[in-house]
């Protein structure tokens, strides 16, 4: 054993106590900017574009506006760029603008259960901090609400206190509605790649068919992605937690901030899909009085409630809390931007995962045409496009639940013998009131079983359609080949038989041709009949299903 040292322990404990300090979240992220995706020269720039664009889109959508976004990246020097992002959203008030761009963990999104792109209130302020750290410059923001009055302001962050610092505030007249932000960054680099701002914008356009984005890259080249749909996604709604997904801790925390006076009304008002029948069932299952004040619920009582939730049937979370892209929209923009030969899109129904959060999966599989990633040598590789709340995820694919789900599918069963080397683009969109990212950089979804399973089911469904298409394609080609084969063989057969039997070759040939044509016609007819029968059966099944609904 070691010899014990001579130390004055009390002094040490107290000495340590003196060193004990609290820190602001701004300081934390300033020191740990890699956690926000602000590391790596190329990645940082894409992250910046991502943060501004998602804020713009969220604002437009909440205000029911068809978004038009202009993005410009200018090269100011080596690894030194200026980024400008302008939207036509509702604009921000002076007070909000400061917090939105100058305070971490502040925003409209964190505390509401609502499907939005941003959900943490960190992004834009993180960019301000990054600009400040690398250039010492504040971020310039102009905002207008369209009523002729605008203001401009410069914003930076006081890291010690996590408070915005505003300067050069100016009001002026212009008929502008929206927010424009302009900021300078060092330690970033623009380079076209699979993970560049351009690819980010392209994918944003695919997942957001109602958006028009104009992008001017540092070389001055303009890239315009026009909207393929004029339908604004329905405004996301704040949603109450679904009983199936909440934990004891969640129940207690909701109970503390409810407006309800009794537990029974708390349950009725503060949870999704809570009908009278369900309430009755629950009240039978708990052994305390549901008329008590929710604020006085104990852990054990809350545990009883959660147990009762698990044993009770509820409807699936209401669809209207989620705003999926929509099958038609995905199809349109996929066709316009990816241009596959065949496309199959599947939109699943909303589901719930632990935490009571509703989520919904949509997938698209494009095969042939320009689908897939094209290598420099012209070879095609499979391409996976990941989206969370309509935001493209370009980084950390390896640790993402979506990648995991795609890889877990046995693609051979769906006619793609060598998936990795097929001309295929797999599109996966996950929308949720709360997306469980693996990190604050929001580039990968944690592999929560329910989510992986749901994505896999969607891909398998879509895969079946793809495989039917591939099979039909093969069948059509086969039919053609059969006809040609018969016609090729007939002259040989006729001539051989004629030589042996001295029957006239020409006569045999004509007879054989007629035989073949009759046979093929018959087959086609049979096929049609079979198809009609199958369709009839299908309809029957559907109408039965409707009746039982």
């Amino acid at each position, binding site marked *: 054993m070691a010899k014990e040292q001579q130390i004055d322990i009390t002094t040490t404990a107290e000495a340590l106590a003196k060193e004990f300090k609290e820190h602001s979240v701004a300081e934390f992220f300033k020191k740990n900017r890699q956690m926000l995706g602000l590391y790596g020269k190329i990645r940082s720039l894409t992250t910046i574009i991502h943060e501004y664009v998602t804020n713009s889109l969220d604002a437009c959508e909440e205000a029911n506006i068809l978004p038009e976004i202009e993005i410009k990246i200018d090269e100011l020097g080596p690894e030194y760029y200026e980024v400008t992002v302008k939207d036509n959203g509702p604009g921000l008030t002076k007070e909000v603008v400061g917090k939105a761009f100058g305070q971490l963990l502040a925003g409209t999104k964190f505390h509401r259960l609502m499907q939005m792109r941003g959900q943490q209130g960190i992004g834009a302020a993180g960019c301000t901090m990054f600009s400040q750290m690398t250039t010492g410059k504040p971020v310039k923001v102009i905002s207008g609400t369209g009523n002729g009055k605008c203001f401009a302001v410069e914003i930076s962050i006081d890291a010690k206190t996590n408070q915005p610092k505003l300067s050069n505030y100016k009001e002026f007249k212009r008929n502008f509605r929206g927010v424009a932000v302009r900021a300078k960054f060092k330690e970033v680099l623009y380079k076209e790649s699979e993970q560049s701002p351009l690819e980010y914008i392209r994918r944003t356009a695919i997942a957001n068919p109602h958006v028009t984005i104009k992008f001017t890259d540092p070389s001055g080249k303009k890239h315009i992605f026009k909207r393929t749909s004029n339908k604004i996604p329905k405004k996301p709604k704040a949603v109450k937690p679904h009983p199936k997904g909440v934990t004891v801790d969640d129940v207690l925390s909701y109970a503390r901030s409810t407006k309800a006076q009794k537990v029974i009304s708390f349950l009725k008002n503060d949870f999704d899909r809570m009908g009278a029948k369900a309430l009755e069932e629950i009240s039978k299952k708990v052994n305390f009085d549901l008329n008590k004040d929710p604020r006085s619920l104990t852990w054990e009582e809350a545990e009883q409630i959660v147990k009762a939730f698990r044993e009770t049937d509820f409807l699936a979370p209401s669809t209207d809390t989620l705003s999926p892209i929509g099958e038609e929209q995905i199809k349109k923009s996929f066709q316009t931007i990816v241009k596959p030969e065949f496309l199959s899109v599947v939109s699943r129904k909303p589901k719930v995962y632990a935490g009571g959060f509703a989520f919904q999966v949509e997938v698209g599989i494009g095969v042939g045409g320009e689908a897939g990633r094209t290598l420099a040598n012209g070879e095609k590789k499979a391409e996976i496009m990941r989206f969370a709340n309509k935001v493209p995820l370009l980084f950390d694919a390896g640790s993402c639940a979506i990648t995991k789900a795609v890889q877990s599918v046995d693609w051979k069963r769906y006619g793609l013998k060598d998936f990795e080397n097929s001309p295929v683009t797999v599109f996966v969109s996950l929308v949720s009131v709360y997306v469980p990212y693996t990190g604050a950089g929001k580039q990968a979804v944690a592999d929560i079983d329910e989510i992986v399973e749901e994505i896999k089911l969607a891909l398998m469904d879509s895969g079946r359609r793809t495989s039917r298409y591939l099979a039909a394609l093969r069948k059509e080609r086969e039919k053609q080949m*059969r006809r*040609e*084969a*018969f*016609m*090729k*063989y007939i*002259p*040989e*057969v006729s*001539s*051989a*038989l004629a*030589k*042996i*039997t001295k*029957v006239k070759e020409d006569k*045999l040939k004509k*007879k*054989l041709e*007629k*035989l*073949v044509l*009759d*046979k093929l016609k018959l087959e086609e007819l049979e096929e049609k009949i079979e198809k009609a029968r199958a369709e009839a059966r299908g309809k029957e099944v559907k109408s039965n299903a409707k009746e039982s609904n």
Partner: protein
Amino acid sequence: MPKKATKPKRRLREKRTKGPKEIAKAIEEIAKKIVREINSSKDPIFVTKTRGRSNVSFDEKTGLIKLGKKTTARNFLNIGHARKFMQTMLVMAKTHEYLKENKTAAIREIYYELKHTLGESKENTFEDQSESDACIVDVEHAVDTIRERLNLHANPKGSLYGDITLRDRMHNNDTFNCLKLGRGGWSIMSRMEPEEIEIRKVNAKFVLVIETSAMYERLVEEGFAKKHKAILIGTGGQAARGTRRLIHRLRYEKKLPVIVFTDGDPYGWYIYSVIKQGSMALAAHSEYLACPDAKYIGMTLDDVERYNLENVTEKMKEGDIKRAKEMLDYAWFKTKEWQRQLKMAISKKIRIEQQALANKSLSFVADTYLPEKIKNKEFLD
């Protein structure tokens, strides 16, 4: 030493031999039937015997591998059959022509004669010889004859040495004794039908069939044929049809016992079994080709221990082991001795070549190994 006059246990019933005209006629009948079907708007059908394991069986009585009675129909209107149907018609027409014009061709030649591009396509009538070979077998079965009588023949292979006098009736009636052609012997032809090659005289007690040409040469060199009154036949690997036909004729026309001497490995044993019982591929012709009472003299894995040949064994390759495992299931290897031999091969994973006997001395095989085994009738059965 086997007596000269050993009679085959059972006279093989060779089917009544059809002449060229009868065979041409049979082909015409098949063609006419198909034409009739076409004329009455029916799906034209070519019928032949089913090949492959499902229609092959081992006839314990005769000791032969035989083709069963199952038939296979090829419908032209079935896309899976159409190409093969077309090919079969071409082969039928061409062999019909050979018979009419009294020509003969190698199976590779008929392939080339018939190969051409189909119309504007990139498809050929035959892509490789295996396709025309398969059609030849189908026609053989359909008209119930052997390819030699369709005026076709495979490549020749094999050498003959010993006191045997042959006459080539198609070549000036050349008559020659195969002991008097120097040590090279006579090159066995691909067609050894009695109508062409006549066995005039044989002065021998038995036939020794030898797998490798080097061992054949060694035995010629050592004077084995004269000393033991043997006919030596070197097959040079798997015996060609002509060689098998010659062995068969020596057994049944000349009543000579047949002794087979191959490498001690699954491939060698398979060579022996084809000479003895026939092969699955040519199951229909076993009566023409096989010698069900042929004896196997060696090499065996027992020889390895008996003659201290451990040093000169070779490792079996994976393919050999696989073949040995398959052979365990063949009906004609179901004897106790052969099962033991095959299992030993599988577990020891070794093989032993004929020439490994040179490890003892060059003349060991001729002076000791073969005479002793023949004297003591040590055959594997």
